[in-house]
């Protein structure tokens, strides 16, 4: 399963990475991240005046001998990070399927699966608390319409994780707003939330994003679009069927309308970026004709989500 999603060299690269949330400061257990809190690691951080009750083992006796003032040594603390990876597994992600809409090599869900697996793998290798959730139609397995993996920590979960991700499929209509809100309510620990979606949701996703940010999460939005959605190869008198809702839209596409559509997509991405920036979330527009590991290695790194 590992090989299906990424090869060894990519894996080695991923192993050197670490997910980072600059605004989330609430590690629950010892982790690999330096915490802003002073703690019990071996790395010296600072001194402070001794207060009664401090551990005498932390008292710097050499200083006390020289200055006759009791000073306690403070050490860096290390903590873990709660990583929430959320995948939109609605039918609109199942595109392009090799039909008239576009070539299957730009399949959004496959791209999203790889991205998800990559991020999850990074998270596991850094002993983070990983939660992977795929939003899909409410079904027999999960009443709230989401498939969950985790919480998991450590490389030992790798195989199971990849099996989970590989077994996901995109189908049905998902109310992204509701799903995100529901997830925000459910989570206990604040952490880094990465949402992978095409954001083709009629009800929008702003409320869900607000709920996540309000909960104290640091949110990164990976907006996955196929190149065929940015530059549609459609021409003529068409009846466009929505893969999620099944609703039809009649449209006579000519060059002028295609230009308008391109501009519309640009506007949409810009408005998404503005909305995310206002809420302090990261927005990363991705098209599926780029290399998925490039998104992790460069785009997310640039935003500081990955170090």
């Amino acid at each position, binding site marked *: 399963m590992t090989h299906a999603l990424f090869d060894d060299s990519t894996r080695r690269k991923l192993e050197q990475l670490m997910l980072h949330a600059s605004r989330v400061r609430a590690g629950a257990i010892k982790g690999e991240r330096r915490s802003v809190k002073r703690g019990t690691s071996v790395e010296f951080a600072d001194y402070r005046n001794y207060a009664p009750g401090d551990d005498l083992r932390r008292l710097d006796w050499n200083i006390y001998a020289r200055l006759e003032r009791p000073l306690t040594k403070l050490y860096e603390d290390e903590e873990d990070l709660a990583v929430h990876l959320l995948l939109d597994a609605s*039918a609109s992600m199942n595109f392009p399927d090799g039909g*008239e*809409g576009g070539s299957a090599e730009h399949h959004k869900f496959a791209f999203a699966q790889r991205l998800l697996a990559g991020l999850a793998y990074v998270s596991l290798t850094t002993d983070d608390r990983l939660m992977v959730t795929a939003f899909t139609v409410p079904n027999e397995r999960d009443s709230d319409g989401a498939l969950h993996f985790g919480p998991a920590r450590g490389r030992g979960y790798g195989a199971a994780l990849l099996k989970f991700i590989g077994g996901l499929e995109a189908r049905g209509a998902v109310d992204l707003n509701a799903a995100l809100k529901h997830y925000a309510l459910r989570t206990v620990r604040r952490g880094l939330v990465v949402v992978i979606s095409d954001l083709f949701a009629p009800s929008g996703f702003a409320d869900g994003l607000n709920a996540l940010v309000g909960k104290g999460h640091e949110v990164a939005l990976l907006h996955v679009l196929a190149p065929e*959605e940015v530059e549609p190869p*459609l021409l003529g008198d068409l009846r*466009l*069927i929505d*893969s999620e809702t099944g609703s039809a*839209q*009649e449209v006579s596409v000519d060059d002028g309308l295609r230009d308008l559509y391109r501009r519309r997509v640009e506007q949409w991405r810009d408005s998404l970026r503005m909305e995310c920036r206002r809420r302090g979330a990261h927005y990363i527009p991705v098209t599926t004709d780029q290399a998925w590991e490039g998104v992790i290695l460069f785009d997310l790194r640039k935003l500081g989500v990955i170090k």
Partner: protein
Amino acid sequence: MAFLTPLALLVGLLSIPIILLYMLRLRRREIVVSSNLLWRQLLQDREANTPWQRLRRNLLLLLQLLILALLTLALARPYITVPAVSAGRIAVILDASASMNATDVPDGTRLDDAKRRAIDIIDTMGADDRMTIIRAAAQPQVMAGYTGDRAALRAAVESVLPSSESADWNAALTLAAAGALGESAADAVSMIIISDGGLGRAADLPPIPGALRYIPVGQAGDNLAIAALATRAQPNQPPQLFAQIVNYSDQDADTIFSLRIDGALATAERYTIPARGSLPIVSAALPAGFTVIEAALTRPSNSPFVDHLPTDDRAYALAPQTDARRALVMTDGNLFLEQVLRIIPGIQPFRGDPALGLPGTGYDLYIFDGWQPPVLPTDGDLLIINPTVSTPLFEVGGLIDMSGTIRVQRGDPRMTFVDFSAVNLLRYKAVRAPWAEALIEADGGALLLAGEVAGQQIALLSFDLRDSDLPLQIAFPVLMASLIEWYAPPSLIQAAETAFRPGAALALRLPPNADALRVTLPDGTRRELTPGSALVFAETGQLGLYRLEALRAGAVVESALFAVNLFDPNESAIAPRLELTLGGTVIPQAGAVEEIGQRELWSALALLGLIVLLIEWAVYHRRSRLRLAPVR
């Protein structure tokens, strides 16, 4: 604007099925996309912002409805009323005479201008108007009978060809009037004469049931013409040429008069012809033995004079016809023979004395009466009466007393009218000539032998005229005339002159040894005339030289030339006339507004419809190309 066939507007109802078909027609291709969210927003925005976009999507429908509207309008034949020259029953007489070849109007000849005016009249015809087109030339011609079909009338006008003839206006007007009478006597006919006014001799105006109108064409009268060109033979002198150049304009004109003799330029001289004057030219320096003289007028390069009618700037003359054939009569004195030779045309007898021998050679015909030179001459034809001695050509035997009957070869054309039934003969000589045919025979031998030896035509009369009463009979001049005609057949053209006017009809003669006649026209086309048809050639409309050939089994046995020249002061005087005097009637120029005509607009509408159709096709083609574009 009104409509001639308003019912055709009902065709506009076809728009309903078009719209219905359009609504049913559009089958969109279904394509599943991840989400049509963006498309929906896009179209909502677009339709909200630009309402005409909805119309633009139906551009094809609009174009089709526009085409239908235009075609419906065209079918309804809208028209506007315009001033017209005439209305009702109209006879348009187009002058196609020689003067209409003048090029003093812009854009072509006067005839072209006249045609344009005729088409203008056709275009302003009302719906109930009927029109006929008559071409006035030497023979008037009805190009189109009374009809309201504008296309047919237009085609008839276009098919009018110019001629080099004078128009026969009497005949043309009679024809127009006759056509009108044939239609309906109740309707008055307007006759419109489109001409430059050079009507020539239309002395008696036929009774015309209706009004005459005259549309003049032509602007200038500047023309130089060769008005005459002729050659004359003079005894013992080279032939003489006479030419006359006439200036029909009101200004002096310079011209170069050139003569070509048998195709080679002989002289070219510059003359100045005074206004309204003429210049006679007499040239004596013609070489002997020429066939054709071509005279031409050329404008000198520095002359401001413009000759508007080129047709009369060229003329042809043939060499004068040779004199009568010279015949040498060697006789001791034969009053009957000399008398009859004197009265037969085309022969000039000279008498020689047998005692002095043959006076010389160079005669066309030698007639030996009871005398023979030692050696028979070979440069002319021979008629030997009562041969005396045998020669290499014939054998002369002894005298035979006449008995029995005289038989004439009736089948021979030379003997057609010769009647020997009343002729009494005493005796004759037994003459034998194997090359000759016995035309008249008695029981014992031939009385008249005739044949051809090495191009020499020889006839032998085997008795002394004084031994018979033939000279007293009517058969004698008939026989002599037949023989003389056999020796020297007359010209192929049964006329004294060799130059004719255009349109003249020529009576032609088919020689006995030919089976067909062929005429080569100046433009090189050929006409074949067979004895079955009347041997009259009237296709002399072209100016120039005609070659006439008599054919036997396709080979030329005899040929002659004749020329057709304009030489018509009525046609050469091309100054347009503003009034037409026909007989005693003065016909004024037709005014601009006389009647109300209708100018139809359907052709413009149909053309517009066609253009829109092309646009519709281009739009449709562009759309289908888009639809078929490969998915990238």
